[in-house]
């Protein structure tokens, strides 16, 4: 394992941000950093995320609920990242989720959630001062892989919407210090529920539910070297439409789910074992609307495979 491969390693980066709120507004953020994997390399990842909350917001009213107790979610994900070229990566994530409410009687749910695929493009790189400035664009899509029940919040494993999103990210690195900022627009398809009428702010006679679109803005900064990566991330997720949970009502898939989160992410790669990298981190919802105040911890193992011709020779 030569040094350059270590460099690629760090590029094999996948941040999971599984915030079990009332749903996964954000599922795996596999694409929220300013790093690429080189051509014909493949990075395989297994991840585990544990998320829980006791308090949630009904609109802006923060409360607990003994009939929910602590809502936990465990997410087991398989992810991959393949370098189509040095400037274009293909990524995918498949999560399996289990939920449990420690209070009340609602049955926890489990199942495969949404397949997420994305193309990450690094079109522009330049030197500014002593550092390197890069622009990235990520086009992503997600769709449910199983027929799970979205209208059984808060124990549902997801919202069952098909999404398409575009994220633009700028990254500036000088020495081993970097800063990055990104904005994302997530288009969400309407969903079908098993009820054929429901109340939002009025009674609607349909089994289709309008799902408002979502934006996400994040800022991250930290230390990035060949072996070690440590960063802090602040993120704001906003649903553009939807409605508040009424006092003492149950949540609904088209609620206006907003949240501000703060998190940390660490990655470490070994000299001794070629191609192996470990990652760990956590996130906390600082403020929210119609979401649980979740805290999550995650850990994962990454392994880099080299399919490039150069290496085979």
């Amino acid at each position: 394992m030569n040094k350059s491969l270590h460099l690629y390693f760090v590029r094999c980066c996948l941040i999971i941000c599984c915030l079990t709120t009332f749903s996964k507004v954000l599922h795996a953020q596999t694409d929220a950093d300013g790093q690429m994997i080189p051509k014909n390399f493949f990075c395989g990842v297994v991840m585990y995320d544990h998320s829980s909350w006791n308090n949630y917001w009904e609109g802006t009213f923060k409360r607990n609920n003994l009939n929910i107790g602590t809502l936990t979610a465990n997410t087991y994900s398989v992810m991959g990242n393949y370098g189509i070229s040095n400037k274009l990566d293909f990524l995918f994530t498949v999560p399996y989720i289990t939920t449990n409410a420690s209070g009340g009687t609602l049955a926890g749910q489990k199942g495969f959630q949404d397949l997420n695929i994305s193309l990450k493009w690094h079109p522009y790189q330049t030197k500014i001062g002593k550092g390197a400035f890069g622009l990235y664009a990520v086009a992503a899509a997600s769709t449910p892989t199983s027929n799970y029940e979205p209208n059984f919040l808060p124990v549902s494993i997801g919202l069952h919407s098909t999404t398409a999103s575009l994220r633009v990210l700028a990254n500036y690195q000088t020495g081993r210090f970097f800063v990055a900022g990104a904005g994302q627009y997530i288009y969400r398809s309407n969903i079908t529920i098993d009820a054929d009428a429901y109340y939002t702010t009025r009674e609607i006679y349909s089994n289709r539910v309008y799902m408002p679109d979502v934006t996400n803005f994040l800022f991250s900064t930290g230390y990035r070297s060949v072996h070690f990566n440590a960063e802090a991330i602040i993120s704001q997720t906003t649903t553009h439409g939807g409605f508040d949970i009424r006092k003492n009502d149950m949540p609904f898939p088209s609620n206006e789910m907003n949240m501000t989160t703060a998190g940390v992410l660490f990655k470490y790669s070994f000299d001794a074992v070629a191609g192996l990298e470990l990652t760990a981190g956590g996130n906390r919802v600082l403020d929210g609307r119609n979401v649980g105040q979740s805290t999550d911890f995650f850990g994962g193992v990454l392994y880099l495979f080299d399919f490039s011709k150069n290496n085979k020779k």
Partner: protein
Amino acid sequence: MKKNLYYITGLLGLTVLVFLGSCKKSVIDRTALYPALAPSNIDLNADTWKPVLITDASIFNVPAPDAVTSPAYVADLNEIKAYQSNLTDDQKAIIKYWSAGAVLRWNEILRGLVAKHNLPPYQNEDGTYPAPSSTNPFAYPQFPFSNPPYAARAYAYVSAAQYDALIAAYHFKKMYNRAAPYNIAGIQALIPKSALASYPGEDAVVAGATVEIMKLLFPTEIAYIQQKASEEMQYRMMAGANVRGELNAGQSLGSQVADVFAARARTDNAGKAIGTQAVWTQLQVQTAARGETYWISLESPSRPPMLPLFGKVIPFLFDTAAVKTLRPGPPNLTNSAAFKQEVAEVLSYSKNYTREHQAQVEFWADGAGTYTPPGHWNAIAATEFVQQNYSEVRWARNLALLNMAEMDAAICCWDTKYFYFNQRPTQANPAIKTLTGIPNFPSYTSGHSNFSGAASTILTYLLPDRGTKFTDFANQAAMSRLYGAIHFRSDCEAGLVTGNKVGQYAIARAKTDGAGN
């Protein structure tokens, strides 16, 4: 530089695609597609139909209409002409909405209000619960908490008041025999013409009755309801179907008839149904005295049982004594093998559910924040009635039959629940997790099953060509409670039987009310 331009263009293109995709996402509400009501039969003899409460239509005050040659009538016609000469898109939308029918739209409005107010109160700091107060309705928790028994009663009073008001209206329509304004030159009919006399206006009668009874049932919503009523009156004028004088007379008549219903509602015992701490304790004591495990709330903090004295509310279709005779025999005794077997069955549904069961549970859940099971059956009935081209009075009659059956089913079911006061499956075995929320009242018998049994029985009588459609629905609704692991099988089966019996009372009434089938 040129290369950068390509990149930026590509990015912009992608962004535009994402945004364009976000445009076409409106959800189509099936009730918005209903056509304008064009009755196949105007039921001209409806003045001879048997009303629910009123005895003599002629006692109500409906003065003779303005002479067609009077300045007042001419002014009323000019008001219509002014509307019709300059209809805005919003006004056309109002015409389209209300033309589907007054009884239908008011039933939908009521369903929406039930869903809005069907939320259990949030607890106090000390873990007790506040109760809504009809004398201070705007304070939290607002009055009412329109839970299933409350909702069943509200649907019944509104439907029955509308029905009696329309019977009275037919009496005066025949007496004064005034032709609708759209028969006069210069006034267009923007909805299907009816041969029915237009004084007093039937839409106004329905609105007047509804506004008046709703002052009692949903006092915090009066402004909203009155705004809907004035929109409906405007619709009748814009459509060329009524002059203002016909609408004023109609609203007045509807209001007078509703007063008869309001007087009954004030003394039907519903106001006392919430009970007191002494009543709640007595329920435990008397159940324990029989050697049975008594019901306890599975909510945290523990919530007082929902409307324990609703079984004492005065029914519409039979007298209070009949409630006791309709009460089914006792549930399986706590220590019986049959009971243990039933607990085991529920546990197996809790642990081994299918996605199809989940869908059935959700479809029929009709829990907190919804229009309740009686509301669901109103929605089912309305979907069918729209296809029948009923007159307004037949719409009102059939919904009154349905909703009186639902209210009386609620009375019988609540009487049974609090007579036996028995536990939910999860109380018997906490390992039983549920696919929907557990309602905060005893298990035996299932409310859904009572409501569905009663509704399916009367609807099958009214629409025999639908075959077993409603019976199948009722069985699905009942079994959804077992699949959801919140009821024993016997709760559902006994509930359906009682519901069917209540439905038979509605059929007996329907056979003799003079309206035919």
